[in-house]
């Protein structure tokens, strides 16, 4: 699906704004204003301003890299840019006409500057206008986009979003973000912990649609299960090439089933970020996720797709949870305000998500048993019952005593069948879980123990699947 030009523009400008804030390394504010003028067709005036470092305009001059069509009936290709650096004495104003060729001298017009009278500050504001037949639709998408950024809970950037609807002399303002001090992450928290905090809040506020955490959902806060994983390519020499990928998975076990989450059953929402902005390469991320070995964590993908260019949705064959949210953040260790939005490193993403899944499995093995182990586990009750019957139906009391001692049971007074069976069942289940946590190599290294130690080292042991021996009906009686 062709992404619309205004959306590409909006996305790219916000991305660069965030990078400028990152470089400044101080607390910054990023404000987005969307003003709709009810004309025919409606005019939407968008302004993105930040208090990050001043801009060299390089990132704006490269905007035509992101879109093949630079102007359309929606946008005339003009950007109004205001920027100043911390040590600049002036605030500079420009008008950039991207539909002019790079050699034209009216492509970038420098307008008269403003002198800074009071204070030292830096920042950039960029404005542009688009004609939108359906401005509400754009507004919704833009709000959703900005809210996604909040998921990262970057403690150094404060976001503001204003929607204004102007019809003649009437105007109406909305402030869709419910950001306040309570919702901000503590300053010294690592970025992955901020992401965990944000993902949790996203869930408890029903996708940031509620101003406060839902009461029902919050009561289950302690039962939320988190797993995180990190992958880096720090062996790269150039610092600007050093990438870090953080993955966070938030799970609610199915047995809780509060009503808020019942319609998200068996699906996961995946949020992808790049350099602290929502990623525009969701297809690449989707392909990477589809190639992961989910069955070894007991998950089977039914379908996966990109929804509304905003997030990835994965539908699972039946799962053990109410929902599972995943956040993946790929970023350069050093922010580059003029850098290109590169395609994310698929190997690193795969490693990070796998590490997060392994983290989940290590602490909650029974929820993330591989499909193989889940299949085996189904047979455990019947096996345990057979063994219990064998033990209890014997008339050799010495044998019975030895068995109960081995099982660590002191006596079998009431309900011996149930006690013995559940004891054996539990032991076997634990062995299955422990075995499942091991890697393939570790499992291969274990020498299997046989029921009767034959002591004959010349034995040849063949692993055979249960094959109904067809050839053996010769002399097969």
């Amino acid at each position, binding site marked *: 699906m062709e992404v619309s030009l205004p959306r590409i523009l909006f996305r790219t400008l916000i991305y660069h704004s965030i990078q400028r804030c990152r470089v400044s390394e101080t607390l910054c504010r990023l404000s987005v204003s969307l003003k709709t003028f009810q004309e025919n067709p409606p005019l939407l005036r968008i302004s993105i301003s930040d208090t990050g470092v001043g801009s060299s305009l390089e990132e704006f001059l490269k905007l035509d890299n992101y879109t093949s069509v630079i102007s359309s009936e929606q946008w005339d290709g003009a950007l109004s840019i205001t920027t100043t650096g911390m040590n600049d004495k002036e605030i500079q104003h420009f008008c950039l006409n991207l539909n002019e060729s790079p050699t034209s001298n009216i492509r970038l017009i420098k307008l008269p500057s403003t002198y800074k009278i009071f204070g030292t500050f830096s920042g950039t504001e960029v404005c542009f206008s688009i004609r939108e037949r359906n401005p509400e639709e754009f507004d919704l998408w833009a709000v959703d986009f900005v809210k996604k950024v909040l998921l990262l809970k970057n403690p150094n950037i404060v976001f503001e979003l204003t929607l204004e609807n102007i019809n003649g002399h009437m105007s109406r303002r909305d402030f869709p973000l419910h950001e306040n001090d309570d919702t901000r992450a503590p300053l010294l928290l690592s970025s992955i912990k901020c992401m965990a905090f944000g993902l949790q809040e996203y869930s408890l506020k029903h996708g940031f649609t509620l101003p406060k955490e839902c009461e029902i959902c919050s009561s289950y806060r302690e039962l939320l299960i988190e797993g995180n994983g990190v992958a880096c390519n720090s062996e790269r020499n150039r610092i600007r090439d050093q990438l870090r990928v953080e993955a966070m998975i938030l799970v609610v076990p199915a047995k809780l089933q509060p009503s808020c989450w019942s319609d998200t059953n068996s699906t996961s929402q995946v949020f992808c970020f790049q350099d602290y902005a929502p990623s525009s390469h969701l297809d690449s991320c989707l392909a990477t996720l589809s190639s992961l070995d989910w069955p070894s964590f007991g998950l089977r993908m039914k379908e996966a797709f990109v929804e509304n260019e905003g997030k990835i949705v994965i539908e699972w064959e039946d799962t053990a949870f109410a929902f599972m949210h995943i956040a993946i953040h790929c970023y350069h260790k050093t922010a580059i305000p003029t850098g290109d939005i590169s395609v994310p490193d698929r190997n690193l993403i795969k490693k990070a998500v796998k590490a997060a899944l392994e983290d989940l499995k290590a602490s909650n093995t029974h929820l993330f048993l591989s*499909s*193989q*182990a889940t*299949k*085996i586990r189904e*047979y455990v009750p*019947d*096996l345990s019952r*057979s*063994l219990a*019957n*064998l*033990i209890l*139906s*014997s*008339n*050799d009391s010495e*044998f019975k005593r*030895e*068995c109960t001692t*081995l*099982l*660590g049971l002191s006596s079998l007074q009431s309900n011996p069948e149930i006690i013995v069976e559940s004891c*054996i069942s539990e*032991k*076997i289940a*634990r*062995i*299955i879980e*422990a*075995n499942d946590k091991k890697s393939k190599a570790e499992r291969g290294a*274990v020498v*299997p*123990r*046989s*029921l*009767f130690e*034959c002591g*004959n080292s*010349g*034995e*040849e*042991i*063949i*692993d*055979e*699947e*249960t094959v*109904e*021996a*067809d*050839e*053996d*009906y*010769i*002399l*097969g*009686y």
Partner: protein
Amino acid sequence: MEETQSDSDLVRSTLFYSDQRLCSADILSPAQARARIEVAVLNFLKTLSSPNPAVSDLHLINRRSENCGLRRGLLSDVSSVFLSHSFCRRSLMRANDAKAFVRVWKVMEMCFMILGEDKLVTQRELFYRLLSDSPQYFNSQEQVNSTVQDVVSLLRCTRHSLGLMASSRGAIIGRLILHDPGEESLDCTILGSAGHAISGDFNLLKNLAFQSDARYIIVVEKDAVFQRLSEDRLFNQLPSILITAKGYPDLATRFLLHRLSETFPSIPIFALVDWNPAGLAILCTYKFGSISMGLESYRYACNVKWLGLRADDLHLIPESAFLEFKTRDHQISKSLLSSTFLPDSYKMELQKMVEAGRRAEIEALYCHGFDFLGKYIAGKIVQADYI
């Protein structure tokens, strides 16, 4: 001196060499069999509760042709097929194997109970018990039989020791008096043409005493031919005992035949089978034993000679009576030709069968008259026309 291929074959087939490699199923009393199952349970629990807990695998002797050898008797001319020390593993930790693993324990559980009640139960009854107890694990008689053989391989005891018997299909008739201790003797010459049904109870068969003035024992593949020969009272014209398993020989019939051959070592045993690979396979089972029950089957191998139908008899059969080989015939012949135990003379006969791609039943001889069969048999015996 360089060892030739035939020298090393000779060495490998001597009794001493093969006995080291031979795996056998013990004949146990019910108490002993129960004790062995209890040992299995204890070992399982010990490994389960050890400092490095694990679920023990089951090592079962491999019941495939790669693991079988031929054992030639030194003092007798009886050869038998045996199984050696190659094992196959049933593990709970492999998803595709886990169900089979549990099946073995389910059968052990059932046998433990049967032995405790001092009963003897047919495999058919066992199937129905297991079907009602654990329907998700057992869906066919073959699966139950195969799991029983797994238990035999695991515990290394005979099927009969587990309290199981196959329902015997065998019948016997002829110049033989059976003495069952505590019962009246049975004269097998005065029976109806269906003969006397052979019991599946090995204990009973073990205790039978015999009296006979027969000069030959004739093993007949099919019931219809057996009944024809019984009706004609062949065993009176030609002093003989007729025995049939009505198809693939069950262990009880083979056991009885073996007991007869031991009681009357001078009486030769002849086989009358159809001219097709299945008939030859049946003959080989009586002669050498079977692979799938290789742990106990070797005990009951007998020196059975192939009387007919053979290649030289084909001129007696009208063209119209010949049938085309089916896929199954090809499969059986392929397996037999690649086996280690088939004697050369049998191989040549089989190759003639395969080359022609045709088969024929014994009943085809009736075209010469209903009493032709008896004459044919007598003629072949008198001319010593058997291999």
